[in-house]
């Protein structure tokens, strides 16, 4: 268990994750209070990455449950392995008839069979899905429930028991309690409102786009081959793009892709040609690309590199400007 939020921050740093004060404090809190975290924010700001880093930092295994529309408990929690059950019944037929032949009456036979029922409804035939695995794992784990906003409302309700008491009820087996309390992180891209009940059980963490400085640190950490000047320019452009009215703002992961692309292209400075050829790594809609080009040109009138130089540090915090 972590001593304080500094230690959390350092450990995450070792996992190549640059955490803000707020993130590390919330992780620290979650561990202390045994509460799940609900991380919300735009796509691609590293919410899933946070779970991986958390698992790495605590030395736990990461179990991931990806949510989607129509996800239900058989896919999230457990499923009976019918095929195996049937196979066993077939193979054990002789044994069964031997067992039953000794019974004199029908009801006696039924009783005997009932005594052996547990053989067929035991954990042996239970196919554990991520949630059950997280609860029954021998070692403590980090459970990532990814994009909870994609699942249905009923599934959300189903999660409540797990999130508050860390236990589930399997009708045939009774209640299964967690062997080790898992650390739970839920992520949401905020495509729909989550229920009050779910929110109430979680600590809330809003992960926003990083500031200029943070993003530069991330790029430097993850793509060390990119030269410093270029990295700075690239991050400036990305930060500026986020202030534009685009269909989809470039995410941190796209910044990293772009940085890698620049390395692959052996670019040593940002000129118009480089920018034009690689802009599609950042922007995934044709209309966005057009708009971005217009925006850049109207700023500089000459070309990419001048445009870049002008987005200087004094407006480096796009969040403040957007509000």
């Amino acid at each position, binding site marked *: 268990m972590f001593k304080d939020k500094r230690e959390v921050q350092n450990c995450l740093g070792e996992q190549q994750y640059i955490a803000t004060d707020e993130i590390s*404090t919330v992780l620290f809190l979650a561990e*202390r*209070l045994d509460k799940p975290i609900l991380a919300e924010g735009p796509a691609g700001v590293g919410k899933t990455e946070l779970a991986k880093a958390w698992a790495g930092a605590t030395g736990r295994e990461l179990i991931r449950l990806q949510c989607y529309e129509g996800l239900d408990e058989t896919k999230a929690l457990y499923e009976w392995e019918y095929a195996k059950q049937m196979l066993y019944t077939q193979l054990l037929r002789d044994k069964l008839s031997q067992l039953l032949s000794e019974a004199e009456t029908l009801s006696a036979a039924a009783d005997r069979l009932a005594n052996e029922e547990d053989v067929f409804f035991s954990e042996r035939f239970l196919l554990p899905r991520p949630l059950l695995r997280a609860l029954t794992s021998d070692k403590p784990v980090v459970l990532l429930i990814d994009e909870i906003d994609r699942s249905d409302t009923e599934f959300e309700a189903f999660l409540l028991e797990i999130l508050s008491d860390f236990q589930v009820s399997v009708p045939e087996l009774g209640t299964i309690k967690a062997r080790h309390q898992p650390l739970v992180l839920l992520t949401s891209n*905020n495509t729909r409102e989550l229920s009050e009940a779910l929110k109430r059980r979680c600590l809330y963490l809003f992960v926003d786009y990083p500031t200029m400085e943070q993003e530069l640190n991330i790029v430097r950490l993850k793509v060390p081959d990119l030269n410093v000047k270029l990295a700075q320019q690239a991050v400036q452009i990305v930060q500026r793009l986020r202030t534009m009215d685009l269909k989809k703002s470039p995410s941190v992961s796209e910044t990293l892709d772009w940085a890698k692309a620049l390395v692959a292209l052996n670019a040593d400075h940002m000129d118009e040609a480089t920018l034009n050829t690689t802009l599609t790594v950042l922007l995934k809609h044709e209309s966005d690309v057009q708009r971005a080009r217009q925006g850049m040109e109207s700023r500089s009138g000459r070309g990419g590199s001048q445009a870049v130089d002008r987005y200087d540090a004094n407006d480096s915090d796009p969040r403040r400007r957007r509000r």
Partner: protein
Amino acid sequence: MDSRIVHFITALRASGVRISLAESQDAFYAINHLGLDDREVFRVSLKSTLVKEAKDAPAFDRLFPLFFGSGQPPMTNGTGGMSADEQQMLEDVLREILRELRAELMRRLAEGRPLTPEELQQMGQQAGLPNAHQMYQQQWITRRMLQQLGLQDLQEAIDELMELLAALGLSDEARQQLRAAMQGNAEALEEQVDDYVGQQIAENMAQEYEKRPPLDDLMHRPFETLSERERDELRRQVARLAAQLRSRAALRQKRGKEGTLDPKATLRANLQYGGVPIKMKFKHKQLKPKLVLIADVSTSMRPVAEFMVRLMYELSDQISRARSFAFINHIHDLTREFEHGRANEVVQEVLERIPPGYYNTDLGAALIEFTHDHFDSVDRRTIVIFLGDGRNNYNDPRLDLVDQIKRRAKRVLWFNPEHPLQWRHGDSDMLQYAPLCHAVHRVSNLAELAEAVDRLFD
């Protein structure tokens, strides 16, 4: 401290943050567990346990420093480095310029003495602080209180004082020091007053909030009798109401999916049983409705229209496609605003787009435009909802166009806030429209509106 946190939570609620009892309990638990030593940990503990929506974060960030802020602003004593003689000199000068309050202020600044709670309270009372219930009043009241202190032409007063002191022969160094201290103290004083005012307003808001009328009552009150504040209160409830409707709609959809057998999926699902069909898979019936809303946004209809748009927006995940139009006498397509903006401003934005002037409600004219420009939005899966009082100012109701829409749509519904008895009076064409609709619902208050919307998902 505990009562401070309780106050803080009430103030958050008053500014529209929904905080349940369990959440405030969590906050206390977190704080008991982690202590108060680290300010940042304290802040994040409160924030992550109390604020569960990104849109509420600004309210938290604004209120937190007011309640747990800088506390007493640091003030420095500018006379510290002076000799006894010099202090005497200052005292003399201050007595010299004994212009009532001003000297008092000068002394306060020179010695670095903050205002006491009693003084603050008294000043606040004079500035009308007890009646302030809105955050935007903070600046104004702060300014008034600073004026009472006499801080407004401080520079001149300090200059004057310095001149007098210079004339008496106070050393340059001592004067510099005194001046710097006084100016720093003046800023600290301003901050103190500003914090105090913010805090008081937040507490006023919290108290006011506890006196608000019960919700259930508001849900059943007719829209037109609601005050702006009550409407605001209701707006906050719409999200909750929508959540209820949403889960009901989702459940209904789940239970209602008895479609035809899906052989492909069935085969795939039963491969594990050696192809013996143990588990049946069905094609899901598409039950999410497509909606087209045509809303009257003339003055009398505005609150209803706004709540309707709000509900529809909140329920957008249960609707496969929603288009909304507003009319007074021309039709306006709101779909874009609806998809992009939060529902909050949609109706307001449309009203701004419609040129001002004398409005003449005319559904007939709006329908001509609708069938001409937007008829493609209606198909056999679409439910068309008219939201209006059916009062057309004796213009042609164009029943034929409604009929045309009805033939093309799955269902045509009419939501009318008026009582059926009123339909036969004045310029109402409702009695003519009603037979053309599959159903007419009366929606004079939020409860009725919610019920009508709920029936859409049947």
